């Protein structure tokens, strides 16, 4: 209960809700870091996952590399980059993108390669090109898994974007690092609580997104199979 009390006392103080250090500004910064990182991770991982899944080549290697990749410590990578390339616009972005790639890549690959071979045969039999098979058959069928990958990535990144504060940037990590440095546990707990709320909001967002994007046929199928 101590955590909740600390967090609540800090959160209900009006001082936290205004100005450049206030929660609204920090939340926007945090969401900005998250959105940019997830977009870039998706731009890299989606095409690679789709191609590997479609051609069925190098899948084993790619999935294993992606899984080993997950073991890269994000904070360690950040500090290494500061030492190697210094403070550039990418210094904080690279570790978060690296964190975001594996879930999207693995889920996209699994989604596409798991499509029933009979369906693909039928599509080809109807005279579809490779591109049409990928775009009209495999991709729609893989959407639920792809969305799950994006969701996992978004939650990872929203929870980990706190590390930007470690190199003097903003975001909600500021509260945790500054609070720890000055023994202000209310600030630490309050900042952490806001991050938890953001992670839950991301979860809800993806539930909504799934309703919008997953093809109606698949949704009916899922309901029927329950």
């Amino acid at each position, binding site marked *: 209960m101590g955590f909740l009390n600390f967090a609540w006392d800090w959160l209900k103080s009006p001082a936290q809700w205004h100005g450049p250090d206030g929660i609204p500004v920090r939340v926007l910064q945090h969401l900005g870091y998250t959105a940019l990182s997830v977009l870039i991770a998706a731009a890299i991982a989606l095409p690679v996952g789709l191609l590997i899944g479609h051609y069925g080549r190098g899948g084993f290697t790619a999935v294993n590399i992606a899984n080993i990749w997950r073991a890269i410590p994000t904070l360690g990578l950040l500090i290494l980059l500061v*030492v190697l390339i*210094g403070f550039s616009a990418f210094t904080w972005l690279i570790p978060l993108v690296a964190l975001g790639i594996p879930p999207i890549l693995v889920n996209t690959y699994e989604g596409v390669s798991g499509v029933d071979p009979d369906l693909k045969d039928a599509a080809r039999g109807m005279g579809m090109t490779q591109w049409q098979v990928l775009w009209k058959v495999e991709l729609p069928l893989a959407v639920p898994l792809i969305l799950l990958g994006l969701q996992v990535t978004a939650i990872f990144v929203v929870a980990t974007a706190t590390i930007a504060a470690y190199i*003097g940037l903003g975001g909600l990590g500021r509260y945790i*690092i500054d609070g720890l*440095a000055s023994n202000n546990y209310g600030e630490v707990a309050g900042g952490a609580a806001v991050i938890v709320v953001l992670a839950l909001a991301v979860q809800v967002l993806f539930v909504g997104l799934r309703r919008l994007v997953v093809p109606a046929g698949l949704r009916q199928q899922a309901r029927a199979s329950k």
Partner: protein
Amino acid sequence: MFASSPTLKRGAALGLAVTASLALAACGSSSPSGKSSNPLGGGSASKTVVIGSANFPENELLAEIYSLALSAKGVKVTDKFNIGSREVYYPEIKKGAVTIIPEYNGALLTTSVDTTSTAASTQAVDAALTSGLPSTLEILTPSSAQDKDSVTVTQAFATAHHLTSIAQLGPLAKTMVFGGPSEFQTRTDGLIGLKNNYGLTFKKFDALDESGPITLAALTDGKVQAADVFTTTPQIITDHLVALADPKNNFAAQNVLPLVYKPAMTSTITSTLNAISAKLTTAGLLAMDKAVILDHANYSTVAQGWLKAEGLPN
């Protein structure tokens, strides 16, 4: 740099208790059989002194300097370096299990002797230590070498704005971003002290690390124009940085000096250690730190080279 984790501390304390009792046993059994007449040491150096050090490179280097010089004077020396943090070694020197340790007067005062002290100048800190230390301990003459927080800028920035002292920053501060550990914002000798002592208000504060790689990168990349860097950080040399003078002692003095266990002292020991302190400067210590930390030179070689260059016994 003076911090250490509680679990490590506990482990180190346990290890120390064991090694200390072994060492005491060793002293007890070996000193009666030791040679009593030493052609170099005169009659004064018959006891064995135990030189300890904290667990970071600079402190071990200083202990090595003390050890080599005293050995050369014929004092029987036992080295017990890398003991741990002050919280661990201070009780040991208080009871005489260790007899000489290189210390930093300001940090010694505020962590082990008087945690509420606000003494800032070398004289004030030493006076507070002399009155506050237990009767078995004393500090010898302080050296001019200091390992303390500072306002550090790049050489290029200092040249462009003709800076040598914090007092010259004045209105320039309003255009500068300052980098330091997050706690620098709330410490009385941090932003608050810089405002009260020098009237400085910086454009912005960036929370970085404690004089580590992030702070150094931010300074050399121009992300910040000034930063809190410890005055013996070896990258001051390699990254071409300048620690600005602090004439108003915003940062409390951290002079290197020997903390000694009084009953074990002789005039030879005291005069040898004071001769070392008379020659030790921040620049000299910085150069030795660079050799040991960045160039991975051997402690003994570096210590011996310095003693030789300064004309001290080695």
